[in-house]
């Protein structure tokens, strides 16, 4: 008997396949005793580490670029001679192999963790290695992304960035997580790989291994044990839908020809070709943090300018909105972040960083201006985490001073949205970052999966702030964009347009769906949907009401 589970669809598409669970990390038994003499135990421990190293080394040869070097470095750790000698010492002293391995890893873990946040990723790698070695010794399933030898639907509590390095889009047909949220790593990764995904699915981890599920990443439904006819029907409908999406192209327009700019989000100069190849009017959010992360010093002017140049040159004749450095909170930088901020999400982050380090912003603007003057792209610049009109005015004045004519600010702080008519008057455009705006509006940490209902971008209070911002832009004749994950939801995109938003920026994979939704609705219809959403009592009701209205 088929059973339907539901969650939040975060990456569109329909797929079916057998479930493979991500195994939980193995637990080291506290009462482990040596199975044989110390020499036998030592051989067992060394063999386990060697086999883990071999697996990782083999995966490194198959993984692309960055992921390959992470895996190769991890394989080197598994073969570390000092680690091996610590394990040998412990088993000689009478400990079981599994205990010796766990303790040796723990010792290095402590040393790396003590080296500070810069080593955080290596600590994660080491933990993964420890879990793999322990699982091998105990003979329990390997933690991490499973490899059942055939395409599968991945079910997990949630995915960590480390789990995703080797996620193979050809094998993983869909992703279902019990926790996570619309802005979790799972969501962002699945969308960038184009894998259908549903998060916050209650009961997901209880689905039997190997059971067939039908996953709809658009409406968030998961059908357990569907019959074959239902699966075929859903896949055929999805194919027809995708064919329909491909039939619409060009700049975004409503059915009555009201233009809505469709743009893509990029977070670096990797995957630039794919982003540039997308049928869009340019880049609505170029995140620049990647240049500054995981390094002890700021990048040089030349280094920055070369990267900006590559990005601008990929979009000749199109718009590229550069967001200046957004450090702090979940993206700490070694050289600017205060180590002991009690509440980093409310601390010195975003544009506020320039209060303490004005030179970083000055250098970044110099590099952007240099690259812009040598390119054919239309370059706009915006600042993150602006709260007041004074901040917006001073940022715009500074940007104009570098010969960059278009300066805007992100609306992520409720104060800026409530006073949008003042903030927008002080600069050239605004762009709403829905992820942070919902976090601050609902006082709910965006990484807290169990608060996903509050972080839902359909929440009417968030939409109210979008409305205020859009109306301020309209009154002043200035563009208002949305560049959070929310813009990639075709239904919500209609609501945003109805509220008065003039551009939508999203992952390249989401553009066709949003373009097709716009083409099927008039501006007046979008306004009607926006009113329905604003009048709903909560996010869930807003979504279901708008969906019902578009189907009638």
């Amino acid at each position, binding site marked *: 008997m088929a059973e339907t589970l539901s969650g939040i669809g975060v990456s569109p598409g329909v797929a079916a396949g057998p479930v493979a669970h991500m195994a939980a990390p193995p637990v080291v038994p506290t009462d482990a005793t040596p199975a044989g003499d110390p020499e036998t135990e030592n051989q067992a421990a060394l063999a386990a580490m060697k086999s883990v190293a071999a697996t990782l080394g083999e995966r490194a040869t198959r993984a692309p670029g960055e992921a390959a*070097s992470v895996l*190769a*470095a991890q394989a*080197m*750790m598994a073969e*570390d*001679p*000092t*680690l091996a000698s610590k394990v040998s010492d412990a088993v000689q002293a009478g400990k079981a192999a599994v205990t010796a391995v766990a303790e040796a890893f723990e010792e*290095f873990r402590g*040393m*790396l963790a003590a*080296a*500070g946040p*810069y*080593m955080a990723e*290596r600590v994660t790698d*080491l933990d993964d290695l420890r879990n793999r070695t322990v699982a091998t010794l105990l003979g329990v399933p390997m933690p991490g992304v499973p490899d059942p030898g055939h395409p599968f639907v991945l079910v997990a509590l949630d995915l960590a960035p480390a789990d995703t390095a080797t996620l193979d889009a050809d094998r993983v047909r869909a992703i279902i997580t019990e926790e996570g949220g619309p802005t979790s790593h799972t969501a962002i990764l699945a969308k960038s790989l184009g894998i259908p995904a549903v998060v916050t699915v209650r009961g997901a981890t209880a689905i039997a291994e190997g059971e067939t599920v039908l996953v709809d990443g658009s409406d968030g439904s998961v059908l357990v044990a569907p019959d074959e006819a239902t699966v075929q029907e859903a896949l055929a409908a999805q194919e027809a839908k995708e064919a329909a999406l491909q039939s619409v192209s060009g700049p975004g327009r409503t059915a009555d020809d009201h233009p809505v700019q469709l743009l893509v989000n990029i977070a670096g100069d990797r995957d630039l070709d794919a982003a540039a190849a997308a049928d869009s009017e340019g880049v609505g959010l170029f995140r620049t943090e990647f240049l500054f992360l*995981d*390094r*002890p*010093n700021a990048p040089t002017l030349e280094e920055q300018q070369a990267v900006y140049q590559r990005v601008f040159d990929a979009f000749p004749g199109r718009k590229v909105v550069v967001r200046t450095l957004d450090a702090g909170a979940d993206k700490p930088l070694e050289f600017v972040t205060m180590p002991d901020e009690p509440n980093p999400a409310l601390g010195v982050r975003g544009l506020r960083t320039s209060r303490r380090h004005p030179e970083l912003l000055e250098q970044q603007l110099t590099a952007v201006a240099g690259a812009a003057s040598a390119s054919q792209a239309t370059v706009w610049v915006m600042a993150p985490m602006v709260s007041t009109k004074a901040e917006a005015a001073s940022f715009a004045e500074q940007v104009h001073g570098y010969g960059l004519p278009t300066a805007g600010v992100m609306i992520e702080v409720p104060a800026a949205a409530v006073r949008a008519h003042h903030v927008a008057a002080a600069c050239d455009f605004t762009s709403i970052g829905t992820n942070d705006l919902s976090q601050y509006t609902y006082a709910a940490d965006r990484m807290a999966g169990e608060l996903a209902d509050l972080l839902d971008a359909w929440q009417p209070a968030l939409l109210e702030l979008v409305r205020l911002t859009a109306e301020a832009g309209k009154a002043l004749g200035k563009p208002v964009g949305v560049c959070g994950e929310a813009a990639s939801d075709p239904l919500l995109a209609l609501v945003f347009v109805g509220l008065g938003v003039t551009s939508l920026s999203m992952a390249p994979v989401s553009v066709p769906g949003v373009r097709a939704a716009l083409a099927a609705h008039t501006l007046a219809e979008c306004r009607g949907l926006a009113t329905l959403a604003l009048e709903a009592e909560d996010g869930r009701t807003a979504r279901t009401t708008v969906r019902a209205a578009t189907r009638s």
Partner: protein
Amino acid sequence: MPERRVAVGSKVGLHARPAAMFVQAAAKQPVKVTIAKADGNPVDARSILSVLALDARGGDEVVLAAEGDGAEQALDELAALLARDLDSEG
């Protein structure tokens, strides 16, 4: 014991890729080489975990030491490698 003192040339420090390149080069030497921070305990240069745990930043001085046949040449080779900015290469 023969020693070399050298400032870490990689701006990112002896982390990530530069650390891996250094450890691989050390493993190829015919003698055991140790590495230490100026005021710290020497560790096996073939141990990636020990090298990472040194947390040597760009510009920090480190001390290489080795003994036996080929020690001088091994130290010269590894010191030259450390002095380069390994992360900016290729």
